[in-house]
């Protein structure tokens, strides 16, 4: 079984994140990049299968600027066997459609049984790229699942949608996206960190994928028209409860016509 885990490096959600007001693109200088938490959970799903199925190969695939290699190193130290870094100036700032085109082309360079991605990134929040990849590769998609169970020829999971929970199945090869209800990821241990240095990281450019950068400018794309920052919220009144705070709050709500 060969499992490819898609990984995105994102700004840490525990810090303030910023957009470049001219381009509307992420200001990468303002925050430290980390592996998006949901992608670590995706990697955990793959690694748990590998723990109990000898001969499983787990490959981390990420598209992003130079610094993305750190995220891939972390994935290797957690237990992935190899990594692929899709790196090209003509990929930066690409929209979801272009990103999915490049990732699909990279996936075509290698054989696999399963692609595991996150249901939604914490920066873009579009929840779209893995679905586009599945469509481009004509593979079945099980999106937004938890309780993932990988079998030799199929994969199953629970999909929680607004109106209920669905039990879903797809035959392999397939693309799945996991939610944050998947188990928390393991921490890299010392041995993992040492062996990570010896594991292969392959870098692929657009040329390696036979993708022409001019295709991007010719392609349909989303274009930012304007960016406006909202002023930060100000703290209001703060009281210490001395036994009557509940009554005071009821008065505050009544005064604001909120009762």
């Amino acid at each position, binding site marked *: 079984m060969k499992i490819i885990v898609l990984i995105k490096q994102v700004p840490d959600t525990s810090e303030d994140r910023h*957009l470049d007001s001219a381009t509307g693109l992420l200001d990468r200088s303002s925050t430290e990049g980390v592996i998006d938490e949901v992608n670590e959970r995706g990697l955990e799903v793959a690694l748990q299968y590998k723990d109990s199925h000898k001969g499983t190969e787990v490959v981390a695939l990420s598209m992003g600027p130079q610094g993305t290699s750190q995220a891939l190193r972390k994935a290797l130290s957690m237990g992935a066997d190899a990594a692929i870094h899709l790196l090209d100036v003509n990929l930066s700032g690409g929209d979801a459609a272009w990103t999915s085109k490049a990732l699909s082309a990279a996936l075509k360079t290698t054989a696999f049984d399963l692609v595991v991605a996150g249901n939604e990134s914490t920066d873009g929040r579009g929840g*779209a790229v893995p679905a586009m990849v599945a469509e481009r590769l004509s593979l079945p998609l099980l999106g937004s699942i938890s309780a993932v169970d990988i079998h030799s020829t199929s994969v199953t999971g629970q999909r929680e949608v607004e109106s209920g929970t669905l039990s879903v199945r797809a035959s392999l090869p397939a693309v799945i996206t996991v939610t944050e209800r998947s188990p928390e990821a393991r921490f890299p241990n010392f041995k993992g960190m040492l062996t990570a240095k010896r594991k292969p990281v392959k870098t692929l450019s657009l040329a390696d994928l036979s993708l022409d950068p001019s295709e991007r400018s010719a392609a349909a794309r989303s274009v930012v028209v304007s960016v406006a920052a909202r002023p930060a919220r100000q703290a209001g009144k703060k009281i210490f409860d001395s036994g009557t705070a509940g009554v005071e709050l009821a008065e505050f709500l009544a005064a604001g016509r909120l009762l």
Partner: protein
Amino acid sequence: MSNILVLVELSTAGNISRSAGELLSLASTLGTPVAVLATPHVAPGIVTELGSLGAQHVFLGQTETEPMLLLTPQVEALWQAVQKFRPSAVLASSTIDGREAAARLVARTEGVLLANAVAVRFDGERIVATNSVFGGSYSVESTAEGGLPIITVQSGVLEGRAPEVAAHVTVHHLTLNPEGSGVVEGSTAVVASSRPDLRTAGKVVSGGRGMGSKENFALVEELADVLDAAVGASRAAVDAGYVAQSSQVGQTGVSVTPELYIALGISGAIQHRAGMQTAKTIVAINSDEDAPIFDVADFGIVGDVFAVVPQLISAIRSRSQGSS
């Protein structure tokens, strides 16, 4: 006027989801609304209902009953409808189903995805979608160049209703390849709640890890009920099993913009604030005076929720008795 396709989602029980009305209403401000859905059952009631929500046309992609394919019928129905109606935009709800169907349609049509819109308008010939980034810290307007705009729209942010019409209907038999699709093997419907829906509620009462247990979380629900509010939660409260995940507010949960948001025993991590900091009025009760939730609260109480909230509930009850 140009056609605007709307993906209509059906619940596991086969009912038209609430987002359909919001999307059809938005579509009617942009052009001629065309409702697109995929179902094995061509019930005439559905067409009438979609017409009453403003759909001029209903494009009904008919599938086999078995196997039940996961979203592939919806994508195929949209794809057929795109070719038939040559729309100037496609709208889907920013739900799990809507987002995946929209994304797959973008790949199939080489269109352009405009994700998580809170507003959509025409600026001359081009369509402009507004979305709210990083928990409302930024508002970004985008347009589509060189391809069909396929827009996912946040539910609960749109108001208004399209005029009622008698819809024309087209039934199209979908040809699908089960091999290339996920399959739905079973489903359980969520138990309908009598409380207001979290996404659209005017008031939200949320509880966090500070509630301590599932039993104690009932206090959050009790306050919600006296205020006629929806129940929300932090991720820590969901992880601890106090409440269902559909109640999670924040970065990876629901984003809410109510008139009133009350946070009980929630520290106010940046990921939680990302889902509620655009509320009109924020109230926080927390025993830690340094909790970051107080940085965004209009009225903060440093205190024990188990002392303050019961007192608040009886104060509200006696007020409403006094006034009635």
